[in-house]
């Protein structure tokens, strides 16, 4: 057991590491509250990637060209990959993917509320890339310098891929704007629906944001919600002009935000039910893999077992 004096010393060392912008690593001492906050934040981020596969994923089967089908499938696959890195980061904090998935499914952990809005047309695939991934990047670029090492390194890789997705989304919208009148109307209608929910992705106004202060002191957060929101609006306005769409005003309905966060959004139940179904349907496969691995506990994926010995 650590004495109070030791603890104060450890805490001082921890804060010093943060203050000189060094990373905290999994084996380093860290305050329980820091660990809990990080688990909550990284898990929420991981869940957002996984739940975020659904709105766009529902359009893979209807992508209107083979090229777009390949781009969209690869993008949704990347989101699964991001989920994987982030769940791995939480595993270094001592929480397993299974535990986190159970917390997601049971509603004890959240994911980004933006994914509780439906994707209703192919233009939404573009808009999600442009605005939703764009807002995510604004939120996440500062997190590349976040104090917890595994999280910061995951964010560097994720941000790189997200920028690529954002450009692809914008390019889809640009192409559609050069198409038919109906397509242009689809793009505008899609932007109308996503603009305000995208702005809400930065979280409530600073005055109402409960965790900002402590998170900033810990180097988990580096800018306030309103700062990031303003930066995003500034970045996006000229892009909208180049695209030829009108952005709605920036008046946000925070009652709607809280309703959606608390489970009353258009798709909350659908998203969780989809994830639960996939998880439950896959239980026998995960059990079989565990049984096969036996005491070894390594999953078959990791093995280099080759059926024919001719693997390239």
């Amino acid at each position, binding site marked *: 057991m650590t004495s109070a004096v030791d603890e104060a010393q450890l805490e001082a060392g921890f804060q010093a590491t943060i203050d000189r912008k060094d990373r905290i690593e999994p084996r380093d001492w860290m305050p329980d509250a820091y660990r809990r906050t990080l688990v909550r934040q990284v898990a929420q981020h991981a869940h957002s990637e996984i739940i975020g596969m659904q709105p766009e994923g529902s359009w893979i089967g209807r992508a*209107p060209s083979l090229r777009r089908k390949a781009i969209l499938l690869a993008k949704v696959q990347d989101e699964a990959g991001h989920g994987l890195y982030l769940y791995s980061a939480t595993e270094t904090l001592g929480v397993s*993917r299974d535990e986190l998935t159970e917390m997601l499914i049971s509603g004890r952990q959240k994911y980004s509320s933006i994914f509780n809005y439906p994707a209703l047309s192919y233009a939404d695939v573009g808009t999600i890339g442009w605005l939703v991934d764009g807002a995510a990047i604004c939120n996440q670029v500062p997190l590349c310098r976040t104090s917890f090492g595994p999280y910061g390194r995951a964010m560097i890789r994720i941000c790189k891929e997200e920028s690529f997705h954002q450009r692809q989304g914008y390019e889809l919208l640009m192409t559609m704007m050069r198409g038919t009148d109906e397509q242009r109307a689809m793009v505008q209608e899609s932007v109308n629906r996503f603009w305000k929910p995208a702005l809400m992705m930065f979280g409530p106004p600073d005055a109402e944001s409960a965790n900002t202060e402590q998170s900033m002191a810990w180097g988990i957060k580096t800018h306030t919600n309103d700062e990031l929101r303003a930066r995003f609006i500034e970045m996006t306005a000229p892009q909208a002009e180049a695209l030829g769409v009108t952005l709605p005003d920036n008046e946000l309905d925070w009652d709607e935000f809280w309703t959606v966060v608390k489970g009353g959004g258009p798709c909350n139940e659908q998203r969780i039910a989809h994830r639960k179904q996939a998880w439950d349907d896959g239980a*026998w496969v995960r*059990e079989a893999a565990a*049984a096969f691995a036996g005491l070894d506990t390594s999953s*078959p994926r990791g093995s280099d077992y080759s059926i024919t010995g001719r*693997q390239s």
Partner: protein
Amino acid sequence: AAELASYCLALGDDALVLSHRLSEWCSRAPDLEEDIALANIALDLLGQARLLLARAAAADPSVVPTLPEGSPVPPEDALAFFRDDRAFRNVPLVELPNGDFAETVCRVLVFATHRLALFERLAAHPDAVLSAVAAKGVKELTYHRDFAGRWFVVLAGGTEESRRRLEAGLARVWAHRHELGVDAEADGVLAHVLATAGVAEPDVRPVVTDGGHTEHLGRMLAEMQSVARAHPRGLW
């Protein structure tokens, strides 16, 4: 040229249709690793489909459906999105619904094993495009086959339930195996995988399909083609 086009269409449609089925697993797989792996296989097959459909259209432009004048749809998309189900040349095996993960594993195993054996030979095809597609495909299909083969062995040796599901899935796939043609090389590989897993070859009657399709293809295309057909002059 018509023969080459028809051959490329058949190979391309097999890849396109199975790719679509595999992409239906996206966000629904047993775990993230399998979600990613199945998407990889779907992407590889989609890539093969695009090259093969484009080759078919170039070899014999008459296979490409006529679109409204001024439509910007490229030939690969005209073939994928504006052909009726009856014009698709794929084998029924690839259009069956996914079933569970075990059935998907069995389908990928059988399909990739046969296609790999074929592509190894096609790498020497006189048509430079087809031979290049085949040469590239060999590497991809080897990965697909080994992914499925590993899971085949795991499910066979996992739990009672996984073995039961695997055997049921294999029987369903096996009843369509004749559609892929007779291939001694593929026979050998599959026999080896089954033996490694300790699974007996299913004793099933081949399903009569006579080169036709199942009821599933029409439904799949209704979904797949819906946006493209709603906007025949659309730019994407």
